[in-house]
Every structure is written in structure tokens, then in C-alpha cells.
């Protein structure tokens, strides 16, 4: 394993519920489980359309339960962080009294020995309910629901949150590690394809044109100087991680003698009005071990680029170099 980068991604979804799921979630806040009539059947949890024909269903809701029968189940001995209970529980398909389909949910039975197909269960409600499938805390063995004082939501529930978090371990190639090391030393490490002779920056480890692997033997040091092929002036808006408050530039730099443009680089000591295509620039690196107050999004020890003072490159096609 060359190495891995660990990152945790949050998925904070907000979903609109519509008239059918919204009515179901609102009923949950009132400690009721509701289905919808579809022909002669009662579908729980309710769907907006007849599952057999796809025809939109009239909003003909009907309360079911509160108790029901376990149709099938499994025992979760080691719950994940996403599961509704933090101790061993059963996932079960519960056919509520009056329903023709089964609702999947947790059964808090205490022990696998308390579980069986055909057993009777009733809902245990959460004290705080917001219109979410987990307002139903879990089913418990028996016929008697565990309810709380107090009514439901004051307004119909129209939205729900779903927050998931997943930690990923992304592999980094050996090229990438050497590229990172080079950056620490103030160098750009490139890769030269022996077939097309193109020179690439970074360390992905293959030529995307010829689709061959590129290894250490194809690595080359790249020039420190280049030319600006394009730029943008960014007016900062607040978002997590954004520390800038004043408009700033980001420039695309085409390193001399290479075939790839470095995108969105920091340009140092140039007023926004003076940034232009064709400007000659040179990389500036933090000295080894030096702690620099640089943009945390920039990789390695690269601080940014400074104008060299050389005459501009006036090639009108520069702007067409996108990557």
C-alpha cells in the first residue's frame, strides 16, 4: 500500500415530503401509524402511487395498528452508527393490524431468544417527535404501545433531515507520495509519457492519453517558471473553510515545457486589476521546516506564484489552454 488519505464526508440531506409521506410523518408526531388505500389493499408505509399500476392514489388514509405481527426478522448483534438503536436489536418486517404490506423497523426485544416469526409487537414512541421514521423509536414485544403525553406537530410536517457520515480511506499512488515529497522540497515532480512525450504534473501514475502506467522511471523535475493562461477574481462568500474577506485572484499557470496547466493557483503581490493573461510567473516555496501562513488548500510547500518581470507572452491562443 502506497498510502491512504482518510476523509470523513457528511451528507446532510434535507428532503421535501409531499402530500402522502408528509401526512405519514405528521401522523407519527401524533403517535399514529397511517397507511393509504390502494384498491382493496392498505399500503403501509404509504406510497404516492399504486405499486402495481403506477396510478396516483387518492389521499385516502387509514390508521393501522397500533400492534402488528412480525413477518420476518434478523438479529443485529453489533449495530452500526446509522442503526436506530445502539444495543443489539432485531430488524423486522412488521405487518400492522389492518395493513396489507409490512413496515421495516427495529424491534427492541432484548434478546434474540425473544424473537420469532409471527410474534406480536407494538410501537414504542419517542418523547420528542419531529416527523421522522425514527419518531417510532422501535417496536416492543406485546400488544401495548408505549406512548407519551402531549400532541403532535402544530403544523403539518413538510420536510425531513437525513444526516449520514461516512469515513473513506482513499489510496494514494507511489507517484503521488513522491510528488508530495517533491513539493515539500520546493520542486514540481512531473511524469513524462514515453509514447506521446507529454509531460504531466502531479502523481496519478498513468498517461490518460495512451492509458499506460507511469512509474518512478518516468518522473522528471519540472521548471519553476510559467505563464498565466487564464484567471478569475473571486469575491468571497462565507462557507466553511473560507477565510478570505476581500476579492482575490486565482490563476491558471502553464509551466514552461509541460503539457498540463496548474489550475487555480495563488498569485502573490499583484493587485487584482493588474492580473492578465500572458504574465510570466515563478513558483515561490516555503523554506523547509518554515511554518508559513499560507492558504490551507494549497498543497505541499508551494506558497504561490510571483511575477518574474519578464516580457509577457503575447500568444493569443494562450487562453485556449484549459488543461
Amino acid at each position: 500500500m502506497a498510502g491512504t488519505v482518510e476523509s470523513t464526508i457528511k451528507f446532510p440531506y434535507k428532503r421535501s415530503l409531499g402530500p402522502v409521506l408528509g401526512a405519514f410523518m405528521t401522523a407519527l408526531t401524533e403517535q399514529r401509524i397511517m397507511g393509504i388505500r390502494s384498491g382493496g389493499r392498505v399500503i403501509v408505509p404509504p406510497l404516492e402511487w399504486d405499486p402495481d399500476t403506477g396510478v396516483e392514489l387518492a389521499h385516502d388514509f387509514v390508521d393501522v395498528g397500533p400492534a402488528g405481527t412480525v413477518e420476518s426478522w434478523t438479529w443485529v448483534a453489533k449495530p452500526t452508527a446509522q442503526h436506530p438503536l445502539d444495543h443489539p436489536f432485531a430488524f423486522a418486517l412488521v405487518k400492522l393490524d389492518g395493513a396489507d404490506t409490512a413496515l421495516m423497523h427495529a424491534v427492541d426485544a432484548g434478546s434474540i431468544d425473544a424473537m420469532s416469526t409471527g410474534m406480536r409487537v407494538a410501537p414504542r414512541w419517542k418523547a420528542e417527535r419531529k416527523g421522522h421514521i425514527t419518531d417510532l423509536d422501535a417496536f416492543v414485544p406485546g400488544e401495548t404501545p408505549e406512548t407519551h403525553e402531549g400532541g403532535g406537530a402544530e403544523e403539518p410536517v413538510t420536510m425531513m433531515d437525513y444526516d449520514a457520515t461516512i469515513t473513506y480511506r482513499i489510496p494514494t499512488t507511489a507517484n503521488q507520495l513522491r510528488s508530495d515529497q517533491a513539493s515539500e522540497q520546493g520542486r514540481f515532480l512531473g511524469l513524462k509519457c514515453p509514447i506521446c512525450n507529454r509531460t504531466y504534473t502531479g502523481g496519478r501514475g498513468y498517461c490518460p492519453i495512451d492509458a499506460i502506467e507511469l512509474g518512478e522511471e518516468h518522473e522528471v523535475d519540472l521548471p519553476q517558471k510559467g505563464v498565466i493562461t487564464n484567471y478569475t477574481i473571486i469575491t468571497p462568500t462565507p462557507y466553511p473553510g473560507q477565510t478570505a474577506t476581500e476579492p482575490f485572484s486565482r490563476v491558471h499557470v502553464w509551466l514552461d515545457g509541460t503539457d498540463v496547466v496548474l489550475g487555480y493557483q495563488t498569485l502573490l503581490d499583484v493587485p487584482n486589476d493588474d492580473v492578465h493573461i500572458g504574465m510570466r510567473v515563478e513558483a515561490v516555496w516555503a523554506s523547509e521546516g518554515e511554518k508559513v501562513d499560507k492558504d490551507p488548500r494549497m498543497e505541499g510547500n508551494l506558497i504561490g506564484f510571483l511575477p518574474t518581470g519578464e516580457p509577457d507572452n503575447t500568444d493569443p491562443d494562450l487562453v485556449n489552454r484549459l488543461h
Partner: protein
Amino acid sequence: MAHDNDIAIIGWNISPMVRNTEHTEAQMLLEVITGAVTDAGITRKEVDFTCAGSCDYVAGQAFSFVQNIDAIGAWPPKRDSHVEMDGAWALYEAWLRLQMDDIDIAVAMGSGRSSTADPELIYSMEMDPYYLAPLGADAMSFAAIQARALLDAGKVTERQMAEVAARTRRDGKSRDYNQVTGDFDVDALLATDYVRAPLRRHDLPPITDGACAMVIARADKARELCENPIWITGFAHYSELHNPGMRDLRSSNSTTLAAKAAGIEEGPIEVAEIQSAFTHEEPLLVEALGLGPDTVINPSGGPQAANPIMATGLVRIAEAAGQIRDNGKHRTLGHSTSGPCLQQNLVCILEGGK
């Protein structure tokens, strides 16, 4: 007898199947595409269309398939497409695309690096976002609920499930690429604890990193490039309602419909490679496909021996093709599935000869 509009498989490649590869997904694809076009006796330049099956949630990156295009060698630009499904569905799209009659050769691929994160957490994110995902409803729990429905109905026994595990992992020794193989004693397997009752560890597929690529061509081009093209004579997929609580889990209607639409009844199937990731799914799918005792099931070891999510189904079709090219069989079947409790099912029927 193949007609001009028929499509044939002319090459493929299956990566090593491992618990944790040091390769990126693009690198895995780079190798299997090179392997597949080499197997077909062509280069990437001759490929007119590519279609990939992969999953952003598995990769941990939005638009991860854009990076994977690096493995195709897409310069000058190629016609490319992507499905957020198993590579078997990418093959289905490629098969459809070639029937437009303007291009000759396509590559389909599937890739997944399940070691990147916990598959149990990822799977539930892809479920119904209102009723199922917020419960963390995971693949293992769904499978276990279906297994119990089959056990309660007397359609399978725990011993049969252990026998499936022992047989497939023994047969899986025949493939160098496989991940979990060996000789297992059924009684010893049955003596182990449940992982998610009624499933024991041997009932589960391994967590696998891997990829597969396949080259298909229109009839004239296939005959030109290949002495014995493997003809796709039937290809269909059907889907059922998503929520398993609203389905009869003791059957798989979508599998039966797909098999009929693919023409399964037009002749005997000698070998079926089916995506039965969990042991109880094998007897259920065999029944739904209408296969009898003469059909050999998963001689490669199947998903029990290696389960590269997003490529497992395409590997089944590659193995079914291999039975014709390398093992003298005439008519074989590859199956793939997607969704909780076998929600969606695909059947691909292959034949050798002209």
C-alpha cells in the same frame, strides 16, 4: 445463427480480487481494459463506445467516473457513458448502443473499491431516503430477512445454505483471481455463530476490490476479429417495487420475467453464473430462472468467492462466456442483481457457434 444485427463478446479481463488493493479505481480499470482489448486482439483506438458501471458512494467521490475515464485513453475523444449500476448494466447499454448500427466495437466495464469505506454504511444510503435509509437499513439485514422468509417457508434449510458456501468456495479454487476459496466442512460451518441471524459468516460474500472489462462487437466485426465469437442471444432486465416489505420475498418475479424475455426457454442452459451474493439467494434464483439439475451453477465460485461490488454481475457474464470459449459449452447464462432483496434482475444468455 447470428444475424447482422447480432452482437458478440470478443474479449474480457477480470482483475485480481482482493480485500484491499493499493490501486486506485482508475488504475484497476486501466489494467482490465488493457487486458480486455488485448484479449480481443485490438487496441483502445479501435473502440467506438465505452460504458462504465461504478458508484460514487463506494468511491467516496462525486463524479468519480470522470477520473476513471483516464483509463479509457479518451483522446481523441470517445463516445462514453456511465451507469451507477453493476457493469452488467453497462454491458446492456453498450449492447443497445451497438444496435444503432453506426459503430462496431464497444467496451463495458465495472469497478469497485469496497475497501474504501464500510460497505454496510454505504448501502443504506442508497435505500429509500424516507422510510429505509434513516434506519441504516443495510444489505446484510435485508438479506437476512429474506433468508428467514425462505427458511420459514421451507424453501431452503440452513444446511443447504452451508452446502452452497462449501461448494462454491471449493469450486472457486479453479480461478486464480478469487479471494475466498477452500475446502470447508458443512457441519463445522453450521456449528459457527450467527453474524446476522439466520446468516452465518459463510453465508455472506467477502468484501472485495476488483474490476472487469469486456469487449463486444457487431456481427461482421466480431467474425473478422474472432474465430469463435460468443453471441449475446438474449438480454433483459426487470425491476420490482423497492421496499422489501411490500414484496413476496419467497420469490423473484423480476428474475423470472427477465429470463423469459431473454429467451431462456428456447434451449437448455448448461452453465449459469448467477449473482447470488448470499447463499440463500442461489436456490431462490435457480427456481426463479426455471433451471433444473442439469445446469451447473457458479462453477467459478460466484460472488461467494469474490464480490467486487459494481463488477460482480459483469464477472458473471464473463465467466458464462468463458464456459463457451474455453470449456466447450454451447449455451450459458449470466445473471446480475441490484437493490435490496434482489429488487432488480438482469439475465444475459450467451451462445457459441456461428
